């Protein structure tokens, strides 16, 4: 075995590369799951800022009726890029990043199963994102330079076909997402292989932390959904470059087929993004309630159930395309069924908090915000699943409100919770609790001002994706309120950035286990060494650190 001596110091805060160039080299050649996880999360957060600016521009345009801040074409590009960015370049990398960083630590392994594939996956994601954003200045389409795609994030045919979307802008959308999709698929393969084969001694499937279980389900969903999108995008590329007719309505192609394919990916994708949020909450809520998770096996079963049902509900995005009664009934009912396992989870989280001693630290605040908002998101989802009501609400601002409640109120809140919770582990430094509270409250208020309001616009008949609207429809005041909320949200995100900067400027050491938690990652130093565990741990229950902390009352006697 060839063993050269390399520094490979895992520390984030100092001593890694002797020089700047050296440290860059270390980061780009790394195959360490923790560094790749951080790269994923870091680039996801950068894209988050870009996507946030895009959203802010749109809200500025919509603040007044008849506003002429943005050209229609520019607005259409913004919502396309905003949606695509937030789903593929923010949600996906951040959940993959947390999975990468935490799965090996939580199951007591030293790395992912395929470290190099892991690196490849990250770079594919990043280059995919760069290709997408290259369209802003490198497109060689008919309209000259700088035509970002403007077909919406689900690129419905035939609008995205050759006839109606000339130039290369849509091709950039296809290629960028396809490339980053390969990265996601490889990441999913890696997470599954890691979870199945790399567990430490005693870590049976029944003792996996819920985080790992949920990421396992997510990985299977990725394997099921992402290739579908890739296949559909390949067809679209064939249409656009080779003159094929998959979605070419002039030659008998079917516009609705694209919708079926896209949503067969797109709906599981919603759960791919949302289940990691459940995963963070399932780790954080017990620790800050000082109680074991309530109904572990039911949580696992509910997650698997959501995963299974998730592949049968896609056409509830398509109640308005004129499907037959039978299909409409099926997709309406099966969509309502999703509410059952989701409800089980919600009840179990509340039951976990019930009877505990809830510590209102920043991660827990974000988790509580998540619980309330996700309840609303789920119930507005039930409303949307009722096909007749959906005929009124779909493609209106009500839908916009609904999925932002899911993705911001649900996912982003738990991502923030996770950032505050695991930041001490990753850096060895505590984030300011005070700034964290400011962050939470500003973001919470801003979120509700913007998105709770949007339900109203939808009910008042405002369709989504319009760059302007007449002043006599009664929507103006609500839009103005929605736009005003953006300011609070931005201030909240600035608090977060300030907290991160402050953590490094005025370091407060966290120690290995600042939250008095129970999973394996808290048993190693913060930040963890490159090898995670000098000696591989051995566990006897779901909460190995509880066992060590309470040797007279260990978990394994009760599981």
């Amino acid at each position, binding site marked *: 075995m060839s063993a050269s001596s390399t520094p490979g110091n895992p520390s984030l805060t100092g001593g890694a590369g002797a020089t700047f160039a050296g440290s860059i080299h270390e980061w780009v050649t790394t195959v360490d799951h923790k560094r790749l996880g951080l790269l994923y999360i870091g680039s996801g957060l950068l894209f988050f800022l870009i996507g946030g600016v895009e959203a802010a521009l749109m809200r500025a345009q919509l603040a007044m009726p008849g506003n002429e801040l943005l*050209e*229609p*074409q520019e607005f259409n590009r913004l919502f396309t890029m905003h949606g695509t960015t937030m789903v593929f370049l923010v949600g996906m990398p951040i959940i993959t990043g947390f999975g990468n960083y935490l799965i090996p630590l939580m199951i007591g392994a030293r790395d992912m199963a395929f470290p190099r594939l892991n690196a490849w996956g990250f770079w594919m994601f990043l280059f995919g994102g760069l290709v997408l954003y290259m369209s802003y200045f490198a497109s060689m389409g008919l309209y000259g330079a700088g035509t970002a795609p*403007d077909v919406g994030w689900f690129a*419905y045919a*035939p*609008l995205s076909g050759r006839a*109606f979307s000339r130039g290369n802008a849509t091709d950039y959308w296809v290629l960028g997402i396809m490339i980053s999709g390969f990265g996601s698929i490889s990441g999913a393969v890696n997470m599954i292989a890691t979870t199945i084969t790399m567990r430490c001694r005693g870590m049976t499937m029944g003792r996996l932390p819920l985080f790992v279980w949920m990421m396992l389900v997510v990985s299977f969903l990725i394997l099921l959904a992402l290739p579908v999108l890739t296949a559909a995008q390949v067809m679209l590329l064939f249409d656009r470059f080779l003159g094929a007719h998959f979605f070419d*309505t002039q030659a008998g*192609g079917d*516009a*609705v087929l694209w919708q079926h394919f896209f949503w067969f990916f797109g709906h599981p994708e919603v759960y791919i993004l949302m289940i990691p949020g459940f995963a963070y909450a399932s780790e954080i809520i017990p620790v800050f309630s*000082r*109680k074991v998770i*309530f*109904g*572990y*096996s*039911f949580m696992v079963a509910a997650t698997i159930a959501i995963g299974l049902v998730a592949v049968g509900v896609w056409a509830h995005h398509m109640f*308005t*395309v*004129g499907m037959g*009664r039978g299909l409409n*009934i099926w997709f*309406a*009912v099966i969509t*309502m069924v999703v509410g*059952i396992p989701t409800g*089980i989870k919600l*009840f179990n989280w*509340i*039951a976990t908090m*019930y*009877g*505990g*001693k*809830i510590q*209102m630290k920043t991660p827990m605040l974000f988790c509580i915000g998540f*619980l309330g908002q996700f309840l609303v998101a789920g*119930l507005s989802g*039930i409303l949307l699943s*009722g*096909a*007749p*009501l959906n*005929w*009124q609400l779909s*493609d209106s601002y009500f839908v916009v409100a609904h999925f932002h409640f899911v993705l911001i109120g649900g996912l982003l809140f738990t991502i923030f919770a996770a950032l505050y919770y695991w930041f001490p582990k990753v850096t060895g430094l505590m984030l300011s609790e005070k700034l964290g509270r400011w962050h939470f409250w500003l973001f919470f208020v801003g979120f509700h001002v913007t998105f709770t309001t949007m339900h109203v616009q939808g*009910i*008042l*008949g405002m*369709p989504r*994706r319009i760059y302007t609207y*007449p002043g006599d*429809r*009664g929507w103006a005041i609500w839009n103005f309120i929605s736009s005003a909320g953006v300011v609070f949200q931005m201030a909240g995100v600035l608090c977060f950035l300030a907290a991160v900067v402050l953590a490094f400027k005025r370091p407060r050491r966290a120690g290995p286990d600042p939250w008095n938690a129970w999973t394996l990652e808290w048993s190693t130093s913060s930040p963890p060494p490159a090898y995670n565990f000098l000696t591989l741990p051995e566990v006897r229950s779901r909460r190995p650190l509880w066992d060590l902390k*309470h040797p007279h009352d260990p*978990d394994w006697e*009760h*599981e």
Partner: protein
Amino acid sequence: MLGAAGLAAAETAVRTPAFFEPVAEPAGMILDYGSLLVATCLGIFIVVMGLLIFTIIRFRASSADDGLEPPQVYGSDQLELAWTIVPVLLVVVLGLVTAGRIVAIQRDTAPEGSLSVRVVGHQWWWELEYPGYGFTTANELHLPVDRTAFLELESQDVIHSFWLPQLSGKTDLIPNRRNVLWIEPKETGMVVGQCAEYCGTQHAHMLLRVFVHEPDEFERWAQEQQRQARTAPGVEEGRALFARTACVNCHTVRGVSEIGRFGPDLTHLMSRTTLAAGAATNDRANLVDWITDPNHIKPGARMPAMKLSEREIGLVAGYLASLD
């Protein structure tokens, strides 16, 4: 006395297109169903949110904490069973109600004595054909009250969606397919709606107005629409100019040229209240503006600027303004 001119001013005031103020079926049936769903969800919301808030308040760690870890409760099969089955029952009931409503609302064939209308979506305007009467108009749908209108929805280019919240739910217009929709207006007056599926640059300006008339008023309007275009005195030069330029490649004016199918039928242009699918009110000034440079009113519109001189524009606008 003609067309829109005959409508009372109050009837053309825009009302917020809120679906909770239905003026027709099936919007009314949908609202009933929606209220049931909302009531159910509100009940669930109150119960769960109450539980959550109670838990947070009751079990907050107090400052006078005794330092003991709380009892560790692993779960309860009974509770899990209960909060699984109760939602299952709810879903079964809601599912049955939903199925019933879908069957009641979704109709595939035209009922006896219904008014047939063919709606064709274009980027970015609505073509409205009344096959029973043999004329075509655009962007403003006229319907008689208390009679079912059976709409066939098609598209010329990309996917659009037909949505008038106060009349019915939305249904997509899809190229290569034929969707149907029925509306039975219960009140006269005007309601507004617009395209609800993103269809390109000017999706925002694909607005639609529906005028619901008393039956005799509707018949009068339809007869006016059936006439050939009026040949008013004093606009002959404008008419000749219109017929000579590329205008007629896209626009039909019955009696002048009927080859143009790409743009809206202009035979009774002035009977409509708006221009460019609702982007501007239909008056002489806007007409001049629109012909001079459509991009000024509706950036990205498919109609080209004809590059006519100012005088020619005046003549054409004068002619068009005579088409009532």
